[in-house]
Every structure is written in structure tokens, then in C-alpha cells.
């Protein structure tokens, strides 16, 4: 049995302190809520290039949303509380306010918050209406299909970004299948998102570049095509494909749970190794050891 399981590399994922928030988008139908959520979480794969990382946490049943309409829960992360606020204003303003029938609510109870609806209200050009319900201020902004309702403030909290798994396989198809299995399992974990396209990233990066203008460049140690060119490849000759899954979570426990669930789901899929990306422990505030997450799997494989 153990011969079919991947080797769990004795390493750690290096994760970073971030700030996170949760937005609840509702609409008349699940399709419109999803349309707004997809738009809001588009181009939000990495803070390096997108100023934030965002994704759909899960679909919400009508009974789970503030207005009892179909909804989507979105998580958004950035490097500071101020940046989270700015990104929310940009993305709710451009992607949710614009989407037919939607409303957008704060989904995170926290002592700290950023003003969002309180800025978006100016789109109402003086016709906006404030409502205070149970100590919660809402804004009604007139739009062409009625009104857009948005919370004045959204809760923010310290969060964890950049948890990750590296899946190493003998070929692309097998590795992709394992990645998809991991993603499907990890999406069931509350409080996390996988910000890359359908949760998977092929262009893992290392900090810095030989070109001064770049903050990051390709993770050459994990590129199969460079095995003969570079001095310190992390790959063995039989590895032909490496895919990464990046995890952002509202807290460390959620990220760890998602990584464990992902490893367990990917393990039976024919991978050679499961590893994780780090920078020698010199950059991130969190080190998540793979063997610590799945001691049984690590011992078996």
C-alpha cells in the first residue's frame, strides 16, 4: 500500500501574516450572486501583482444570508487593513454594485473594521439613504434596477496567506488529477480560499530576479525543463510536472486544516512527492511543517 503513496517531504510551507475579510454577496438568483462573486474575485491571485488575493469561500443557502436570498461568501486578503479597505471599495464598487439584483454585506464579526459602504454611498450623488438597524448602518444607493444595499463597514482581522502544497508527479495528467482532488477537498474547509485559477498554480515563484524590476521570478528549482541547466534542482529525474496549491485563510488553523485535507485527498492519486514552498524560513511569519500536519501519512509513505 505504501508503495503507491507519495513521499511527504520533511519540509514546511512558509506563510505570511495578512489581513482578511469576508463579504457576503446576495442576489435574486444563485447565478447572479455567482456572477458578482466571480467578478469581484477575478484578477486576485497574488498580492504581488493584484494588490490582494480573493476567492469564493462557498455558496450560501438562502437561510444563511442576511436577506434570505441566495448568496456567495467571498474572502479577500491583503497586506494591511488599509489595503483591504481599498480593495473592497474598488471591487465591490466595480463588480458587485454593478451586477443586477445584488446586495453586499459584511460577513466577518470583528473588533476592527474598514469603511466600505460609507464610501460607496457617494455614487448615490446625494440620493443615497442611510439606515441604522440593530446598530448596523446600511446604505441604500439608487441604481437603475432599484437599490444597491451595502454595509457601511466590513470587519477585518489578522489572517494567514501563502500556505501551500507542491504536488510532484511523473506526468501532467496525473499531477493535475491529484491537484483537482486536493482542491475539491480543501474547498470544504471554512475560512480559506485557493486564489489561483480553480485553485491551482503552475508558475510557482521565488523571491527576486536577475532583472531588477521584478520582485519575483519563476521557481526554477521546481521547473522540470531546467533540471539539466541549474545547479540545485529540487526535482528528481522522474518528476515531469509540479503543481502548487496556495491557501489563504482567516487564521492559521484553517490554513493547516486545508493543507492536511489537501494532502490526504491528493495522496492516493499517484503522485511521487508532496512538498511545500518556503524561503528558508527567512521571510514568512508562519512555518507549517508537512510532517506535523499528517504524521501518519508521513510515516506510511
Amino acid at each position, binding site marked *: 500500500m505504501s508503495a503507491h503513496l507519495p513521499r511527504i517531504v520533511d519540509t514546511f510551507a512558509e506563510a505570511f501574516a495578512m489581513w482578511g475579510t469576508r463579504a457576503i454577496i446576495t442576489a435574486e438568483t444563485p447565478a447572479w450572486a455567482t456572477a458578482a462573486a466571480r467578478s469581484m474575485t477575478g484578477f486576485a491571485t497574488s498580492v504581488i501583482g493584484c494588490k490582494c488575493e480573493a476567492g469564493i469561500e462557498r455558496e450560501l443557502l438562502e437561510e444563511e444570508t*442576511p*436577506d*434570505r*436570498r441566495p448568496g456567495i461568501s467571498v474572502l479577500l486578503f491583503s497586506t494591511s487593513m488599509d489595503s483591504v479597505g481599498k480593495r473592497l471599495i474598488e471591487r465591490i464598487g466595480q463588480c458587485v454594485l454593478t451586477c443586477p439584483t445584488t*446586495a453586499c454585506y459584511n460577513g466577518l464579526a470583528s473588533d476592527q473594521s474598514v469603511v466600505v459602504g460609507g464610501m460607496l454611498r457617494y455614487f448615490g450623488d446625494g440620493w443615497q*439613504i*442611510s*439606515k*441604522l*438597524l*440593530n446598530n448596523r448602518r*446600511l446604505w*441604500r444607493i439608487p441604481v437603475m434596477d*432599484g*437599490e444597491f*444595499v451595502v454595509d457601511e463597514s466590513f470587519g477585518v482581522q489578522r489572517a494567514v496567506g501563502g500556505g501551500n502544497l507542491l504536488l510532484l508527479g511523473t506526468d501532467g495528467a496525473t499531477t493535475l488529477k491529484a491537484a483537482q482532488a486536493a482542491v475539491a477537498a480543501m474547498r470544504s474547509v471554512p475560512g480559506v480560499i485557493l486564489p489561483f485559477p480553480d485553485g491551482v498554480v503552475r508558475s510557482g515563484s521565488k523571491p527576486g530576479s536577475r532583472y531588477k524590476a521584478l520582485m519575483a521570478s519563476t521557481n526554477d528549482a521546481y521547473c522540470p525543463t531546467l533540471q539539466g541547466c541549474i545547479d540545485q534542482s529540487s526535482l528528481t529525474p522522474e518528476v515531469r510536472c509540479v503543481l502548487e496549491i496556495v491557501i489563504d485563510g482567516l487564521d492559521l488553523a484553517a490554513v493547516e486544516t486545508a493543507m492536511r485535507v489537501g494532502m490526504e485527498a491528493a495522496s492516493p492519486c499517484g503522485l511521487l512527492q508532496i512538498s511545500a514552498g518556503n524561503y528558508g524560513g527567512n521571510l514568512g511569519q508562519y512555518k507549517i511543517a508537512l510532517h506535523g500536519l499528517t504524521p501518519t501519512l508521513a510515516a506510511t509513505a
Partner: protein
Amino acid sequence: MSLTLTLHSAPQVPLEVDGLLPEAVEGKDAAQVAALPLMHGNEKVMVGDFFAARGKGNGELRLEGDLSRVKLIGAGMSRGKITIEGNAGLHLGAGMLGGEILVNGDAGDWVGPEMVGGRISVRGNAGHMVGSVHRGGSVGMRGGEIIVHGSVGNETGNGMRNGLIAVGRDSGDFTGVSMNAGTIIVLGRLGWRSGAGMKRGSIISLQEAELLPTFSYACSYRPIFLRLYLLYLRELGLTVEDAGIGGVYRRYSGDSVELNRGEILLLNR
């Protein structure tokens, strides 16, 4: 155990109990509370002259008996809870800042005049001037919630600037008169001339109503914010039909003799 005051002698003229607040009796035992001063008409009396006290003040005050002639219950209170097992008299929660008052009975006129915060819940009916401005003033209720499960009289929310007034059944005439802002929801019928002179704010009814000619029809739509309000009222124990929560409402703007920035929403039936 909370402090309980049971009325043993019905007042012949109004008994004023302003100052008898949860925060004022906190830590006091029954004997200490019984010695506190009250006004019975123009006569100084003690709490013990009218109430039998038991327990100790711990932030919650219970009043038992027909308190229809007991005025100013909870006036100016800022925290804690007052529960009234029976009817309450005039000026209940006047100028209230915070905390909660629950009346398991009816309340007289002037419930929560010029209230600032907290919540007043009346399980029965309430009289005129709920959440209103005092005569001669310009600004009525400025915050908080008044929830009346039954019906209310005239001039509910007169001069209201903020907060929520919800009525489980019908409201009298001039509901929301001279309203500056805030929200009044009447699950039953609105009286005549609702919203007269209103500048801003929302008056909502789940029944048909005859409106002043100074209100103009804007459109029919499903107001999302109203779902939040009605679901909240349902949580508070009011009976809100599903048709009201997801329904189409006719929006009327008014009062055009003022700013014309107020609204009356009437459920399409």
C-alpha cells in the same frame, strides 16, 4: 435574584418614578430601595408606600401590577432592563439612552418620547405620541427601537430623526408627521395623513393606505433593505408574513410640501 417591586396600593393621582432605574438601584437591597423618594402628585412619598420590594438590584428591575398611573418608568435609563408585568403609564422610557424595557401589557401615551437609544417592547397596545417629540420641540426620537406588538395611537414618530418604530397592528392618524429621518414599520393599517410634513425617513405598511396628495408615486419594486428589517422584526417576535418580506412595494415620495426626500412604501396586494 433581580429586584422586584409589586404595586400594593393603587395611586390616586399619577405616581412619578423617574430615577427608579436599574442603574440607580444596582447593589441596593429591598429595604434601601423601599426608602427611595418618589412623587405622588405634588406629594413626596417613598417607594415602599406603593410597592412591596424584594430581591436586590443586579441590573434588572421587575415591576408588577397595573401601573397605568405610574409615569416616567425607565425615563432616562442608560443600561440594564426593566420588565413590567402589567400596564405602564405615560412617558415610558422618556429620553431613554440605552438598556431595555419590556411591557407585558399595554402602555399609555408618550412611549419613548425623544428617546436616544435602547429598546422598548410593548406586548400589547400603546397610546398616542409613540417615539415623538415633546410639544414645542423639533426633534423626536433620535435612536433606539420601539416595538409595539399591538396597535398605536396618533402621531407615532412625530419629529423622529433616527431609530426604528415597529407596530404589529394598526397605527393612528399622522403617523410619521414631521419626520426628519428614521424608519416606521406598521404591519397593519396606517391612519390618515401619514407622513404629513415629513422631510426624510421611511414609513412602511403591509396594508393599503390612503395617502396625502403631496406624495407622488415613484415605482413598484422589491426593497432589499426592507427584507432585513422585516426579518429582524420576526426575530423580535412580531408576526411578519412571507408575502411582506419578499413582496413588491409601491414607493411614494414625499412630503412635497417639505424636502420631498421621504418615502412611504406600501405592499402590493
